[in-house]
């Protein structure tokens, strides 16, 4: 499989505070990479760098053959290849579900309204929300909002989708419905980078686990099951222990 996303020597700092140091990562098409790590380890910042929400101070991000170097400001092209789903959904509150979904495809990609609506309804149907198409975001539950946000990102046909702790603001029952949606996405061959604290989900969905700590990749393994039983590094072991209650 070909390499879709490649990050080399990525460096990010806020003033004198270095949050990501020399990150190297490459993701193949169709791969699901789950990033875990303690709070403040830089994993969310890493995702934000990937689609240009944070300026990087060093390194190169290449998506589908399109490189973006540090200091470059025009990243709209890159962004169209990368979708992102946020922890707080960030649907547009003044637009209905359907309008939220078709806004960018019609305005950015200049697709016809009929075409965008048709695909939007198909995708909404897949996540079981087609009857909510004329609702406003405030009339939906958190889980429903997050599924709409996923559909909204999907309709742009991104090469990679980034998920930034998308279930962290949800009630436990709603976490399940969102994770189900993501698992079926993963099965359909989407390339995904997921930051999460749901370890069970990470185990189920990941092709590869990346453990971040203090702005650095500490452990990286494709042997997902083994990682959760017997991680190689002491730091990962300590981190995983915090999820176990005895």
């Amino acid at each position, binding site marked *: 499989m070909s390499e879709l996303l490649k990050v080399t020597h990525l460096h990010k700092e806020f003033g004198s505070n270095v949050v990501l140091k020399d990150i190297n990562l490459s993701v193949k098409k169709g791969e699901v990479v789950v990033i875990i790590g303690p709070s403040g380890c830089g994993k969310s910042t890493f995702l934000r760098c990937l*689609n*240009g*929400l944070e300026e990087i101070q060093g390194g190169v991000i290449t998506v589908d053959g399109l490189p973006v170097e540090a200091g470059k400001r025009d990243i*709209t092209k890159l*962004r*169209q290849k*990368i*979708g*992102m789903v*946020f922890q*707080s959904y*960030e649907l*547009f*509150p*003044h*637009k*209905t579900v359907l309008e939220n979904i078709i*806004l*960018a495809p019609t*305005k*950015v*990609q200049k697709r016809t309204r009929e075409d965008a609506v048709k695909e939007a309804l198909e995708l909404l149907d897949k996540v079981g929300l087609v009857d909510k198409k004329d609702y*406003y975001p*405030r009339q939906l539950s958190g889980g429903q909002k997050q599924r709409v*946000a996923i559909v*909204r*990102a999907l309709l*742009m046909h991104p090469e990679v989708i980034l998920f930034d702790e998308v279930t962290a603001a949800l009630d436990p029952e709603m976490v399940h419905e969102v994770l189900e949606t993501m698992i079926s996405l993963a099965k359909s061959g989407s390339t995904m980078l997921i930051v999460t604290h749901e370890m069970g989900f990470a185990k189920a969905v990941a092709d590869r686990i990346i453990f971040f700590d203090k702005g650095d990749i500490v452990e990286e393994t494709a042997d997902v099951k083994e990682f959760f039983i017997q991680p190689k590094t002491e730091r990962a072991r300590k981190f995983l222990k915090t999820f176990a209650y005895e």
Partner: protein
Amino acid sequence: MDKDILIEYLPLYKDALFLTMKIGWQGILLAFVIGLVGSAILYFKVRVVKNILGVYIEVFRNTPLLVQLFFIYFALPKVGVQISAEACGVLGLGLLGGAYMIETFRSGVEAIPIIQSESAASLGMSHFQILWHVILPQAISISVPGILANVIFLLKETSVFSTISLMDLMFTAKDLIGMYAKTIECLFLLVVFYLIMLLPISIIGAVVERRMRYGQFGD
């Protein structure tokens, strides 16, 4: 109060009302445009222009409309700029209102979390598309109460137009009192006509507010 006098004066007040509304609404439209453009400049943090805008806002907010009108009507011709009294009224009201509208829009724009722009940006939208489709619609609906207050305030401010000999409501009332001394009737009609002009705005405004804000805030 003499009923016949009221009826006799009615057409004069009606004409004055039309003139007041005409200038008033043109001025408000200008103020609205200045507000939109100005808040966009502040949003994009356009260098230098942003600072000039700051000076403009402070000058026009902190001087009375009467002074601004005198300046436009009496001082500008001295440097060779001659415009009609009506245009003066529109310009004065528009510039004063513009300063208020920019600040009102700004409060709306700043009420919207940055992550809303980020989520729009992550969908590949340009700065302008984000402002137009995501930020401004939300900002305006947040600012509706403030905008309405500005509209009513600006229409009332038209009462100083009489000083540059525009025959607005105030001018008509003062003129008639001066000529015929029917003070009670004239003032009564003046109050009634201001209410005729302004009350519907409050009522229509409440309806507009409910409709514009439905998406974000519900009923």
